[in-house]
């Protein structure tokens, strides 16, 4: 071995297919989205209305069965606008949000749309924690979280 020898780099790649069950609860939620209805589950013990819906309350450890239809509007709890391009992730800029829908006790992670994002200063003016948002639906709904295209500010 000599110091002059260049180190050889061996390429690697993972390209592994998977299939994930959404389970009964998320499946029911997705069928609701197909009909433009947003459903959540209420915990019989702590009474929280949990979004996204899940099979049991992690706090009370009881199964959830009490479906309630919640509002299509809500409040922006937190956000970040991503400006960097990462391989395999969405094209920037995109605004990731946590929105607490009317009638729920926890926030849904989704995207914000119809807002100027390119210019950072204008984005900071336009996107405000506490602002009212509403769901914008896709025309072609397939029964999945992306049946809601994004949330937009309420006029």
């Amino acid at each position, binding site marked *: 071995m000599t110091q002059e020898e260049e*180190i050889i*780099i061996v390429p*690697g*790649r*993972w390209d592994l297919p*998977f299939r*994930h069950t*959404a*389970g009964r609860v*998320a499946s029911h939620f997705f069928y609701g989205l197909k009909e433009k209805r947003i459903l959540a589950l209420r915990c019989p013990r702590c009474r929280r209305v*949990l*979004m*996204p819906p*899940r099979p049991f309350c*992690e*706090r009370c450890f009881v199964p959830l069965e009490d479906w309630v239809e919640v509002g299509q509007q809500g409040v922006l*709890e*937190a*956000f*970040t*606008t*991503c*400006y*960097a391009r*990462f*391989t*395999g*992730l*969405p094209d920037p800029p*995109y605004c*990731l949000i*946590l929105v*607490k829908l009317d009638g729920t006790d*926890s*926030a*849904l*992670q*989704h*995207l914000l749309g119809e807002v100027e994002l390119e210019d*950072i200063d204008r*984005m*900071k003016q336009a996107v405000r*924690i506490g602002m009212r948002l509403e769901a914008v639906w896709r025309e072609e709904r397939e029964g999945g*979280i*992306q049946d809601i295209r994004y949330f937009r500010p309420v006029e």
Partner: protein
Amino acid sequence: MPRRVAIVAAGLSRTSSHRVDVTYPELVREAVSAALEQAGLQHHDIDAVAYGSMDPFDGVFAPERWNVEACAGAGAANLPLMKITTGGTTGGSTALAGYYHVASGLFDVVLAVASQRVGETLEAQLVLNTAIDPIYERWLGAGAITIAALQGARHFWRYGTTEEDLALISVKDYENARRNPYAHLMRMLTVQDALQTRMISWPLRLSDCCPSSDGAAALIFASEERARAITDRPAWVIGAGQITDNYWVGDRTWYEDWDSLSMLARRVYRQAKISDPLRELDVAELYNAFSIQEIIEYEALGFCDKGKGAELIRKGVTTMEGELPVCPSGGVLCTNPIGASGMIRVAEAALQTMGKAGDRQVPNVRKALAHAWGAAIGFHTLMVLSSEAP
């Protein structure tokens, strides 16, 4: 009752964006050899090994097998080895495993090792995205950066923290890293430079985000009797713990406050008999993968009131010359081999307590704190080390 346990040695590898000069086992061996040498031990002195890393970053599943040469060479041949993975807290959890092994009375001298080659993945954010729920959330493109950015946006909104405050954190940590030969980023940064780096995910700029690093760390935990025989100045574990929050980020209304870390801190400070951490701790190594998190950690760890974290950096309280130096190593912000980063915090705290931190040594360290966070900001580990036996 747990036995008294001390860290008797802490070894670090050199780090960089890609340690092309060494294979993975060599990288691990670098840290392990440094620890064994510091303790004056041979590999046959080790009774068990705890090993930590996060699998997908290296493109190798089950890296404990990949590393079997290094771990076996370090004493794991014919001995028990336990592998730990808890996201960003992996290194912190692996240190806890080493501590628990000895505290239980089942083992006297235990080697804890953590390693990661984030430099071997070409897109760490894509790997991190696989940690997100595939049914509801993964399509959004969320990863570690965006979740920290959500914390930042809330902290700005609630407490009036600014991009200048974040820049002050980065400038302090970059300055510290320049004195640390085991740091990855070792360059000058001014507030002006920081504010001109590109926006990654508002409000976090490039200078607010950790790099991807290759690196490894190793700790040797020993029972009281063995520790006293090995060194005159071990770092005694006087408080340690982990906390687990729920998975769903949307269930928490306090992204800006990190209440689970506050709860863990109260538990661990009670063990360590600490009532005023800002005064009683001499140094703290925090898991500041993103500058905003260091500010939130000041608050959650009780160095100041909620919302007052930025004031500590504005007043210089956490600089090397301040009342409580934070991250003399430069922290995760300057060096992030993810699965090893939590252990590097413990290793730094141990070196500071043992007076072996070289040019970055804080004078007269009696109590040091090491922290890590992991998962979707839902895991934390803490360890308090002391120059005096509990």
